[in-house]
């Protein structure tokens, strides 16, 4: 061979090496698997109840690192608010968001109100600010529609049953889309749930009006058995949702969907925990035919839960394809002020930058440990980088006493069903007339 051919070969190999390295760094690094043989390595990074399950062989943690900064993969208006909203807002005695200078309650916030740099551990309202950020981070991606959301109930080693719903939400805060929307009622958001499966529950629907003030939610239920819209009490937020392990307050980004003023809060501190990423890669965000954003999963099948995987011997509700990344979190403790609330102490582990609550430990009113709620996350970005988002991939709640769990899945029938900035979702959909259109 001539010297020239050798140099070409070497150049080619070098190019391939560069491509391989860049591909590896774009995807992050897949680390070791943590199972019952080496569970000690993640002690302190997950709740004790979760660690116990690793010891028992129910869970396997696939550790990973990502080489992108997750905090940068949030909606553009969230990113700009990190600077624009510095020092702009505060929280008053009623836990409402107010203008920091005037003390007046604000009617609209663009992006998140309390940039992480503004939240100090010694701030007596730090928790309220963190919780507001959690709510408004979700609101920042509205209006939204999840065409199929599946609440899958699982026994320890097998499938139990499921309820399928369709979900709509219109948010009045956070997203520039909603600026200027008439909002005399001081809504924070309005939402609709319609049960579509199974047959005997199909048609059941719920509409919620959530307020920015301390006014209790206004709830309506459509009951197919009586063919009527019925007012529902907002006081049952710790009641089981459709018979699942979830209660109404277990939702949202943080695992808390209640009313902030109705709880006593305490900031325990900060730490690192393992956070579930659906994938170490960033999904591609595309617009559907209505101009709403949606994640395109590149045809990958994820998540894959234990009950779906042949040969899996662990818990049926465990996501066997997840990767786990260390993230910095706030540790927050909450207690309801309502003596009839069904949960006792709750401990939240909320991402300091992304406002997602990766874990929520739930005790019953007698102080016995009861449930573990967890939220996974994933990221998406459009090809032209004009839009990116960080969303909850799915929710999982495990009743540690009954050994039973419920998953709330957005990946249904091989497709991510959540659409963001859905312009066909309008405020008029959340009126009595709009609600009755869902009725059979």
């Amino acid at each position: 061979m001539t010297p020239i051919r050798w140099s070409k070969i070497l150049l080619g190999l070098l190019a391939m090496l560069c491509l391989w390295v860049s591909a590896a760094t774009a995807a992050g690094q897949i680390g070791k698997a943590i199972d019952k043989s080496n569970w000690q390595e993640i002690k302190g990074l997950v709740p004790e109840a979760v660690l116990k399950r690793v010891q028992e062989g129910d869970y396997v943690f696939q550790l990973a690192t990502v080489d992108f900064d997750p905090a940068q993969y949030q909606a553009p208006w969230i990113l700009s608010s990190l600077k624009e909203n510095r020092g702009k807002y505060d929280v008053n005695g009623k836990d409402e968001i107010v203008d920091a200078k005037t003390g007046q309650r604000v009617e609209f916030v663009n992006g998140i109100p309390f940039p992480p740099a503004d939240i100090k551990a010694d701030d007596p309202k730090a928790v309220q600010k963190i919780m507001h950020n959690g709510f408004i981070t979700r609101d920042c991606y509205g209006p939204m529609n999840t065409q199929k959301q599946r609440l899958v109930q699982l026994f320890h080693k097998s499938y139990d049953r499921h309820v399928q719903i369709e979900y709509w939400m219109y948010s009045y805060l956070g997203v520039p889309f909603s600026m200027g929307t008439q909002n005399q009622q001081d809504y924070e958001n309005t939402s609709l749930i319609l049960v579509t499966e199974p047959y005997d529950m199909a048609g059941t629907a719920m509409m919620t009006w959530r307020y920015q003030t301390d006014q209790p939610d206004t709830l309506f239920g459509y009951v197919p058995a009586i063919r009527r819209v019925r007012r529902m009490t907002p006081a049952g937020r710790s009641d089981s949702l459709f018979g699942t392990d979830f209660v109404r307050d277990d939702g949202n980004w943080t695992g808390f969907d209640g009313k902030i003023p109705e709880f006593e809060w305490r900031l325990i501190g900060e730490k690192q925990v393992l956070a579930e990423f659906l994938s170490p890669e960033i999904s591609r965000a595309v617009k559907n035919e209505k101009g709403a954003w949606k994640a395109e999963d590149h045809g990958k099948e994820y998540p894959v839960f234990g009950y779906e995987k042949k040969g899996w011997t662990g818990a049926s509700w465990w996501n066997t394809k997840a990767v786990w990344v260390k993230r910095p979190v706030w540790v927050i403790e909450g207690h309801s002020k309502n003596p009839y609330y069904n949960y006792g102490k709750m401990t939240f582990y909320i991402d300091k930058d992304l406002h997602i609550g990766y874990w929520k430990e739930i005790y019953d009113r007698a102080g016995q440990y009861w449930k573990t709620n967890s939220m996974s996350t994933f990221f998406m970005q459009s090809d032209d980088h004009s839009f990116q988002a960080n969303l909850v991939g799915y929710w999982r709640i495990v009743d540690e006493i009954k050994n039973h769990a419920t998953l709330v899945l957005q990946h249904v029938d091989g497709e991510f069903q959540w659409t963001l900035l859905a312009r066909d979702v309008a405020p008029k959909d959340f009126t009595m007339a709009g609600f009755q259109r869902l009725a059979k």
Partner: protein
Amino acid sequence: MGLQQTVCLPMLARDVHYQNTLREEEGAMKRFRQLLYMAQLVVALMLVHSNCWALTTFGAHDELQLSGKLETRFTFSTEDREGFTSPQVDAGSLLQHRNLAYVELKHTLSPTLKYRLVGRGLYDGVYEYGPDEYQEVRKANRDEIDDFSRDADLWEGYADVNVDNMFWRIGKQIVSWGETDLFPMLDRINPLDNTYGGIFEDLDDRRIPLWMVKGIYDLGGVGAVRSLSLEGFYNPGIIDQTVSPLAPAGTPYAFPVPDSPIATRVIEPEDSIHNSRWGLRLQGVIADNYNFSLAHYQTFVDTPAARLAFDPGMVPVQELVYEKVQITGGSLSFFEPHSESIVRMEVAYHWDEPVFIPEINLDAVTAMSKGRADIPEKDVLRFAVAVDKNVWIRALNKTSMFNFTLQYFGEKIMDYDNRMRQAVAVYPSGDFARIKEYEEKWVFVCYTNYLNGKLAPQISAAYDPAGAYLILPEISYTFEPWRVGLQAAFIDGDKDVSFGFLRDRDQVSLMFTLVF
């Protein structure tokens, strides 16, 4: 017994003849017409929307969904039938083996257009292999009993159209207004089928869909009122004048009546635009908490009015006539924060409701001279107040709340006439039961669920202070895709008032349902 004692409502004696409308047509012709109307509607939709030929499933729109349920229900009496109930079967007898099939098709053609079709099949085998007594009933009246015990038709079928602030639902549907359960007040638009269980059955299972057009116009917010909307419906009397059916004599849920030598003629509404049902309702929310509605509509009374008539040759006949009535009413519901309960109220004023005054309805002189006696009318005011409260009783259920409902019903007959009676005979005298100027009832319901929603017990009870009570405990269990249900019904009463007439009808039912 004189003529007065032999005329009883709402049940038939022998030789029943139905006059007017669809009862005179073959059952098959009736079903054919309904299917034809629906097919025309579907074809029209298909011509309008070019995508509808693609029956594939991608996304929530343009997706065809097929679902339904198959149900079989065994019902046994738990006490001997007695009094005027006929036939008088013993405790432990099979009363019903009712088999139902529902197949539902939903198709979303676009964000503004979708349709839903529900086919229903029904077969009750008790008349073919049940107690001898019921088999004899079939032998004596085979055509009517076969028609009664089996059916297959388009149960519901409608298209939904959304255009800006206007929503239309066109087709065979159910419209339900009001706030109350068990004893409907404003909820009398669709007729009820009480022939296979009456108040032992869920209200929605008993509603008969009607061909109608419903529209809801979203008015948005007006002043302090939010979520204001105007709803209207129109059921053309030339297309569908279905009324509440009467159970054939000798069937398990026929009302207890004494034997009578007088023939009965049921007069159903004619095909006429004057026999249309129609109504308007305004509803909204005040101060984000007070749901209100104001309504006025025209419908048909479920219970036909009785009168004496004479056919040529001075042959007496009992006529049961379905009369129209107009109802004005309203409702209010709100969350009461101190008790953390929902309060519901409803009032309905029934204008010119037919009543039974034997001296008028059975006046032989008038009947002979005019061919038929008169049916007097009175205004009736009905109202209800209800409270719903969810409570934790952790000693009994750690994960789900108990839901309690207490309802009070009142009914006042305006311009009361102390000659008024209920057109039902008291056993054994045969006298007509008295009716008071003011009547009241209490209803209590409690339910919860266990095993992550799979086990659902419920108890309902109704009490009439005049001397009758009803208790309905039930429990259901789900093991996908099956549901198993057990329900009991206990009625008792010292006097023949309201549901106390059915005090020999205690029963227990076992249901198996497959959902798909």
